[in-house]
C-alpha cells in the first residue's frame, strides 16, 4: 500500500471511531434519561405502597394534620367532579373549534386561531387560575366549578390542537364521496369525517384529561380545597387529589407526608392508566398511524 492509502485508511478509522464514540455518548444520555424516569416512578411507587392502606380510598383526612391514618376519599371524588365538569365544558368547545380549523378555516382568522391555540398551551396555569379568580371567584366565591373553569381553559387548547390534527388526517376522498352523494357539509363532517377520526380524537381527549387531573396551581386559586368533609356540590369549595397531595406534602408532618405519598401514587396511577389507554386508542385509529 502506498503511504497515501495508509493515510486515508487511518483517517477513515479515526472517523469511524469518532462515530462510535458519539453513538456511545448518545446511548449513555438516553439511558440516563430513562434512569431519571425510573427513579421518579419507582420512588413514588415505593413510598406510595408503604403508605397506602385500603382505608385511604374511603376515608377523609383527619382533622388534625399530624394524626396518622385517614385518606383522600373527598379529594378523589373532588378530582373526578372538577375534572369531569371541566371536560364537559372543554370537549364540545374544543371539538367544534377544531372542526372549524380543519374543515372551514381559511385565511387570517383561522391562522390566528390556530396560532393562539398553541400560545394558550404555553400560558402558565397559575395565570389561568388568577384569571378565573378575577372573572368568577371574586363574584361567586371559591368553588369546584371555578376549578373546572380553570381546568377547562387548560384542556381546551390541547383538545383543539390534537383534534385538528386528527381531522386533517382524514383523507379528502371521504369528504368528496360524501358531498358527491348529496350530503350537506354539516352531515359530511358529523357523520363521515368525525367518526373516521374518532379514535385519534379520543386519544387527545384522554391526554387532556390526564393533564387536568395532575394540575394543582390553578386549583389553589379557584377550588381552594376543603379537607374537612366530603363535598359533592361543585358550587362549594372543594378538595382535589392534587391539592391534598400538595397540602400534605408540605405540611411538615410525617403522617401528612405518608398520606401525600399514597395520594401521589394514586394520582400517578390514574395519569398513567389514562396515558396508556390513550395510546391504545391511538393504535386502533385507522387514519392516524
Amino acid at each position, binding site marked *: 500500500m502506498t503511504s497515501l492509502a495508509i493515510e486515508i485508511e487511518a483517517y477513515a478509522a479515526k472517523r469511524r471511531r469518532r*462515530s462510535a464514540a458519539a453513538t456511545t455518548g448518545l446511548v449513555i444520555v438516553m439511558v440516563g434519561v430513562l434512569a431519571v424516569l425510573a427513579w421518579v416512578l419507582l420512588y413514588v411507587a415505593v413510598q406510595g405502597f408503604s403508605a397506602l392502606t385500603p382505608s385511604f380510598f374511603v376515608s377523609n383526612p383527619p382533622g388534625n394534620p399530624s394524626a396518622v391514618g385517614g385518606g383522600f376519599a373527598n379529594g378523589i371524588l373532588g378530582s373526578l367532579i372538577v375534572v369531569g365538569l371541566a371536560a364537559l365544558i372543554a370537549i364540545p368547545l374544543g371539538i367544534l373549534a377544531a372542526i372549524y380549523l380543519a374543515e372551514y378555516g381559511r385565511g387570517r382568522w383561522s391562522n390566528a386561531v390556530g396560532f393562539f391555540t398553541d400560545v394558550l398551551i404555553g400560558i402558565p396555569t397559575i395565570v389561568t387560575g388568577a384569571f378565573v379568580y378575577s372573572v368568577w371567584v371574586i363574584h361567586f366565591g371559591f368553588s369546584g366549578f371555578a376549578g373546572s373553569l380553570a381546568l377547562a381553559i387548560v384542556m381546551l387548547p390541547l383538545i383543539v390542537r390534537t383534534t385538528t390534527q386528527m381531522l386533517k388526517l382524514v383523507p379528502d376522498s371521504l369528504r368528496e364521496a360524501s358531498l358527491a352523494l348529496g350530503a350537506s357539509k354539516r352531515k359530511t363532517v358529523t357523520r363521515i369525517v368525525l367518526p373516521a377520526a374518532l379514535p385519534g380524537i379520543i386519544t387527545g381527549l384522554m391526554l387532556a384529561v390526564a393533564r387536568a387531573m395532575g394540575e*394543582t396551581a390553578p386549583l389553589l386559586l379557584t377550588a381552594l380545597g376543603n379537607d374537612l368533609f366530603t363535598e359533592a356540590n361543585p358550587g362549594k369549595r372543594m378538595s382535589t387529589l392534587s391539592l391534598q397531595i400538595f397540602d400534605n406534602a408540605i405540611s411538615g408532618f410525617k403522617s401528612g407526608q405518608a398520606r401525600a405519598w399514597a395520594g401521589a401514587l394514586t394520582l400517578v396511577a390514574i395519569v398513567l392508566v389514562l396515558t396508556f389507554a390513550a*395510546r391504545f386508542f391511538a393504535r386502533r385509529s385507522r387514519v392516524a398511524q
Partner: protein
Amino acid sequence: MTAQAGVDVPVVRPQGRATRWLGGDGAFRVAVTACSAVVLVTIVAMVIFLLVQGFDAMRHYGFFSFLTTARWAPSEATATSSSPNPYGILQFIYGTLITSLIAMILAVPVAVSVALYITNFAPLRLRRGLSSLVDLLAAVPSVVYGFWGIFALLPALKPIGGFLASTLGKVPVIGVAFSGPYFGYSYFAAGVVLAIMVLPIIAAVCREIFATTAGSWKEAATALGATRWEVAMVAVYRPSRTGILGASILGLGRALGETIAVTMVIGNYVLSINKSILGQGATMSSVIANEFTEAVEPFHLQALFVVGFWLLVVALVVNIIARRIVAAQAAL
C-alpha cells in the same frame, strides 16, 4: 294560493342559501366559528382582567415601581403610603429567569441528544417505545415532581451543590453565583426539577423536526461515505438548528410558568435577590401560589395580580417567538 284540485304538484324543495341555512349548514358553520373564537377571547380577556385586578396597586405605587425594587415585604404595606413600594418583584423576575436558564442549560443538550438518538441511532423496533418512555416524563404531574424533588432530589443534589460551592464558588468574580453553603432548597434544585419537566417537551418537538428532515440528504451523505454520526450531524442536526431553537424556547416558555414543583423546592425567599444559585429564592409563579389565598395586607392581592400580569406578558412574548420560529422551520 292553493294548488288546483286533481293536479299533483311536485314537492320541489327550495334550493340555495336559505335551505342550507335551515338544514343546519350555515348554523353549524356559525357555531364552529364561534367556538374557535373562544381561544382568542380567552387570551385577550386574560390580559385585560389581570391588568384590571392589578390596576389599583399599579396606580397607587406607580406602574414601573414594581420593577425597580427587589424587596417584597407585604407586612410593611399601608393603605396610604405609596413610597417606597413594598411590593418589589425584581427578585421574582430574576428567580424565574435564573431557574429557567439552569433548566435550559441542563435540558437542551440532553433533549436534542435523546431526539437524535431515537430518530437516527436507536434500533428501529425500539424507537416507538423509547419515544413513549420519554413522553412519560411529561405525564408525571407537577406536584409529584415537587414532592419527589423535596425528598429524593434535594439530598441527591447535596454532593453536587457542595462540589459547586467548593470549586466554582471559590473562583473570583463568578464565585458569588455559586457561593455556599448549599442546604437543598435553592434556585439550583428548582432548575434541575424544571430541566426534567421541560426535557420531554423539547425532545418531542425535536423528534418531529428531525423526522421531517429530507431523507435524500441522509442518503446523499451516506452515499458519500459519511459515518452514521456524520450523517446525523450534516443531514439532520444542521438543517434543524432553527427548529431546535424554537423547541428550546417552547421548553423555556413552560419553564417560566411552571409553578407547583418550583414552589416546593425553591425555598420561597422573597426579601431580595439571592445572588448564589445555591441559595433560596422565589419565582413569579411561586409567589402567587404561595401567598394568593393568604393575601391580607393592603394591596397585597392586587400586587400578586401585577406579578401575574407580568408573568403573562413574559409567557406570551416567549411563546409567540417560539411558535413563529417552529412554524418557520416547518415551512422549510
